[in-house]
């Protein structure tokens, strides 16, 4: 889901967002703050964190990132890299370097038995939300006039302007949606595991790997890519805990070696 945000940004704007991993951590910290100050359940905090992140995304894009977009891909890379460093330092200053975690109570350990297999509610919920989110994104992209406008801007920015589409506004919306989706991922991450100010970088790499495995700009492919990585990591961890991360990367390399264009190359979106 995190990777879906990344995919969306790249798909619409051809922008590679280095700071994306830090936005997931930002969402988790925002969730933490909301939970700590209101005492509400972490999942409920989504109601606040998602719109907040979406607004941050829109204004970030309008205020800063739009200035950097052009024929050259280097300026946005540098700016998002700088943003990443700034965010990490802000987290350090605001929340200290200690790993923290959100407490979702019984939800974390609850599980159901399906055909003798015990499945955790939380992973199931995460998976369910991921499917719903990607299905809605997919619907938005292919069945609504907003999605039509996104595809037009992604195809040809100049001509899309001629249709009365302000590309700066459209980019802002795309970034807003992407960070809104990222916020969901961030909260779920914060419930599942503990995180610290630098947790974003590792997520970024996995996000990129999921996007690339799935085929650039293909949201369902991105989900499949995420699942492949997740399964590879779990299997790796079974063999030896030290193998967990490595096996994810190995799976990525294997897919790349077999299908350099990704499993599901971009079809029409």
């Amino acid at each position, binding site marked *: 889901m995190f990777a879906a945000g990344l995919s969306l940004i790249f798909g619409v704007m051809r922008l590679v967002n280095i700071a994306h991993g830090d936005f997931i951590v930002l969402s988790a910290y925002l969730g933490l703050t909301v939970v700590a100050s209101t005492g509400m359940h972490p999942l409920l905090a989504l109601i606040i964190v998602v719109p907040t992140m979406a607004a941050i995304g829109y204004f970030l894009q309008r205020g800063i990132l739009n200035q950097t977009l052009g024929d050259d891909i280097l300026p946005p890379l540098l700016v998002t890299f700088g943003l990443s460093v700034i965010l990490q330092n802000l987290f350090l200053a605001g929340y200290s370097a200690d790993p923290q975690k959100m407490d979702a109570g019984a939800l974390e350990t609850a599980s159901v038995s399906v055909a003798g297999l015990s499945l955790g509610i939380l992973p199931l919920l995460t998976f369910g939300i991921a499917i719903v989110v990607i299905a809605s994104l997919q619907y938005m992209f292919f069945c609504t*006039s907003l999605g*039509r*406008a996104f*595809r*037009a801007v*992604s*195809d*040809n920015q*100049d*001509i*899309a*302007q*001629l*249709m*009365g*589409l*302000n*590309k700066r506004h459209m980019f802002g919306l795309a970034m807003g949606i992407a960070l809104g989706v990222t916020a969901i991922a961030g909260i779920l991450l914060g419930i599942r595991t503990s995180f610290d100010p630098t947790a974003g970088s590792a997520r970024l790499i996995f996000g990129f790997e999921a996007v690339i495995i799935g085929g650039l700009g293909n949201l369902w492919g991105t989900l499949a890519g995420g699942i492949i990585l997740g399964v590879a990591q779990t299997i790796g961890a079974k063999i030896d805990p030290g193998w967990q991360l490595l096996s994810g990367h190995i799976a990525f390399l294997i897919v790349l070696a077999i299908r350099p264009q990704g499993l599901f190359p971009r079809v*029409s*979106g």
Partner: protein
Amino acid sequence: MPDPILSLKKLDAFYGDFQALYGVDMEMAEGEVIAIIGANGAGKSTLLRSISGLMSNESDQVNFLGKGIGAHRADEIAALGLALVPEGRQLFPSLSVEENLLIGGRLNRKGPWDLQSVFDLFPVLKERRAYPSTALSGGQQQMVAIGRALMANPDLILFDEISLGLAPVIIKSIYDALPGIVGDGMSAIIVEQDISKALSVSDRVYCLMEGRVTLKGAADSISREAISHAYFGID
């Protein structure tokens, strides 16, 4: 002349250091159809790009419906009622035929053109409405490009070489459709290499050479010699 719908004052245009237009002046009355002719590289497309806001100028160099729009963004100009059918069609490849048309109509301006009337004008598009726009022939793509611009119900429509690369019979059918488009008061600028085609549909002609206007006049009274002189710069 009543208030012009469009006027250009000393319009210059640059690509980096290269100057493509030199002080172009033009006045256009409402409902008029103007043809712009000129050899390859004369600056015809550049002129249309400047008018439509894809290239930015000083505010008062381009005046549309009484507003200085030279410095406006293309999407703002489109919303004022100016549409461009770009050279080379430039459809959105990831949109279907129908979606290409719908996106042209997203400004929701009032007027005679909607999906239905575009399909009436080009019936073949109705059959192909669900196809990807890339799956059409060149002529059909050109119809989509024209339809897409019409969907905005513009007051002024700019056509950039709509016959380029098309078979004569297709060109004829597109030009046969033109009077139905500009007939009800829409103003139009038509850029065309084919001089006789351009003269046949227009009220007045401007000829461009190397970024300058070298000739202008009424389409029915202008002489062939004057045109070839203005076109090629030879006597």
